[in-house]
């Protein structure tokens, strides 16, 4: 009851100095806005990358020539490696007990065309038929190609929804032809729509049989990737070890040398990305926190001025019976209203700006609850931290001295 009344008094005191209160608010708004914008943009980025990697699934890994490379030196070293060979697929199928599916895959980029409509820079993925069980491409319409169609190098294509929408508006594409990099294919199926994420459109894709791909585009050499699905999530490390042993044997890697190939899992990619972005995160959040601290100092400064200006008022309040606690709470309320008010406005602007930023990069993103919560915690923390000293100064004023203050 009494605290609510004191809260109202605090609000009135702030209202009486409207311009000053607004300017004080501005400091916190800028601080919180910058922190929230950056955090929600980074969160969105992380989410997008994660969803992008989800297609790999938790029990899947990929063997490639390059693997995950974190430095220029490693990159140039890795360039010298021999490419993976298609024979390894068979070797893995035979030698790896814990691998249930293995598929060779490679990607080229080219133009796809139907009559006068065309789409450029479409990823054309040449994969073995088992790829459908390894990645999370789902069938929407028609069918996927069979291992026989792959081995006999049939010109059949399985397309994503973006290709369908762009090339076959209002037409059922199944059974129609499609020109892929100048060669005519028959469409046999359509993948389920995944939706855009991380600036890429996963539905803008064409799958063709691996051997057909090799016939048209040549051997992938360095771009050959072997997709492997382990028997279970727990068995991924065992499966990876088995594959490693097989690959090392086939590539004649001496026992004292490192692997001359890479193994990629979704987790490993995520970990590598987090590694890269960690310093970016820390740096950006650190820099934007400076604005927040400045905002807090502005609050403290204004509260100090306010306490001095209102010394007499404090004296009057004390003379009619305000306890130290009552005065302390009133000034804390004032600091908290300023900092939390600024915090809420800053969260609003920050989430909005974060969305725009993310929108510019064409990510899919939900406003991060953690960023909002963090904004509230940070701004109330700023209010409490920078408000407590002036409020204590006010509460401890001696009534006689405060009353005679001119």
């Amino acid at each position: 009851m009494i605290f609510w009344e004191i809260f109202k008094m605090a609000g009135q005191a702030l209202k009486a100095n409207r311009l000053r209160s607004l300017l004080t608010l501005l400091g916190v708004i800028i601080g919180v806005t910058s922190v929230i914008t950056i955090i929600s943009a980074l969160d969105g980025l992380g989410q997008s990358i994660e969803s992008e990697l989800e297609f790999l699934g938790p029990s899947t890994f990929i063997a490639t020539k390059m693997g995950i490379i974190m430095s220029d030196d490693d990159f140039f070293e890795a360039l010298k490696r021999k490419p993976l060979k298609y024979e390894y697929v068979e070797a893995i199928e035979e030698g790896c007990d814990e691998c249930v599916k293995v598929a060779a895959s490679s990607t080229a980029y080219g133009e796809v065309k139907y009559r006068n409509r065309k789409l450029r820079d479409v990823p054309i993925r040449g994969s073995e038929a088992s790829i459908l069980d390894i990645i999370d491409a789902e069938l929407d319409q028609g069918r996927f190609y069979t291992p026989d169609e792959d081995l006999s190098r049939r010109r059949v294509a399985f397309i994503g929804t973006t290709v369908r929408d762009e090339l076959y508006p209002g037409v059922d594409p199944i059974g129609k032809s499609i020109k892929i990099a100048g060669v005519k294919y028959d469409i046999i199926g359509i993948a389920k729509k995944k939706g855009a994420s991380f600036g890429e459109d996963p539905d803008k894709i064409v799958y063709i049989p691996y051997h057909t791909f090799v016939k048209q585009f040549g051997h992938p050499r360095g771009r050959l990737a072997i997709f492997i699905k382990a028997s279970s999530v727990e068995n991924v490390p065992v499966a990876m070890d088995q594959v490693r042993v097989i690959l090392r044997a086939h590539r004649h890697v001496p026992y004292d040398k490192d692997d001359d190939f890479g193994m990629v899992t979704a987790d490993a990619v995520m970990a590598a990305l987090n590694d890269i972005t960690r310093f970016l995160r820390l740096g950006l959040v650190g820099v934007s926190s400076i604005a927040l601290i400045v905002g807090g100092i502005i609050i403290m400064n204004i509260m100090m001025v306010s306490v001095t200006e209102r010394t007499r008022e404090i004296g009057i309040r004390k003379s009619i019976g305000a306890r130290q606690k009552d005065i302390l709470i009133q000034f804390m309320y004032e600091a908290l209203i300023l900092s939390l008010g600024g915090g809420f406005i800053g969260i609003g602007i920050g989430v909005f700006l974060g969305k725009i930023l993310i929108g510019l990069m064409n990510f899919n993103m939900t406003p991060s609850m953690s960023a909002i919560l963090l904004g509230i915690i940070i701004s109330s923390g700023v209010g409490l931290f920078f408000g407590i000293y002036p409020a204590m100064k006010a509460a401890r004023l001696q009534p006689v001295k405060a009353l005679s203050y001119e």
Partner: protein
Amino acid sequence: MALIETRDIWKTYEMGTVQVHALRGVSIEINRGDYIAIMGPSGSGKSTLMNLIGCLDTPSQGEYYFNGNRVSEMEEDELAKIRNKEIGFVFQTFNLMPRATAFHNVELPLIYKGTSRDDRKEKTERALKAVDLIDRMTHRPNELSGGQRQRVAVARALVNEPSLILADEPTGNLDTKTGQEIMQLFSRLHSEGNTIIIVTHERDVATYADRILFIRDGRIEKDEVVSEQEKVANGTKL
């Protein structure tokens, strides 16, 4: 039991290395229903005495009992409680909240007491009626005359039904006529049973009271009862 009893109270200020004694052993006794004036030249210590009596400050030495409670040993928040419930202040400069309405100014002590909203409204209006300002309750101090402001301050002093009304030069910022009106208001409040202490340096004002304590150099110099004749002569008899 006396409402106010001081036993040899001293107030000493340290001014650098020099000790300044504002009060040098004051012993007074004031009973419920008394109407007292404290008179003295400036620098005599009368403001210091008023601050001590009003529980705004504590003595450096000596004992002060208010209503039987030993105030001289109390903590700041206990003093605040006494000021809130037992003492109503009226100041020379009114000391109203400039941005608050007359109603809110009068209501403020009740808020700090923790009185419920409905009770506050009733008591605030009663206090404003007592000073004849009920029709001005939505006005802010700058919309009121000096006399009206001082009446708002009196209403604020009355609102918690205190044991003591303590007025420090209540007419100091008012013209003679308005000052007389305020003093007549105090006389009326006294006749209704309130205990009143007025601090003043004007004899004319002091004669409204029944008894005058003269203070000089931090000591009570004279304790004088105001005669009926003088009251009549000064027109200060109710």
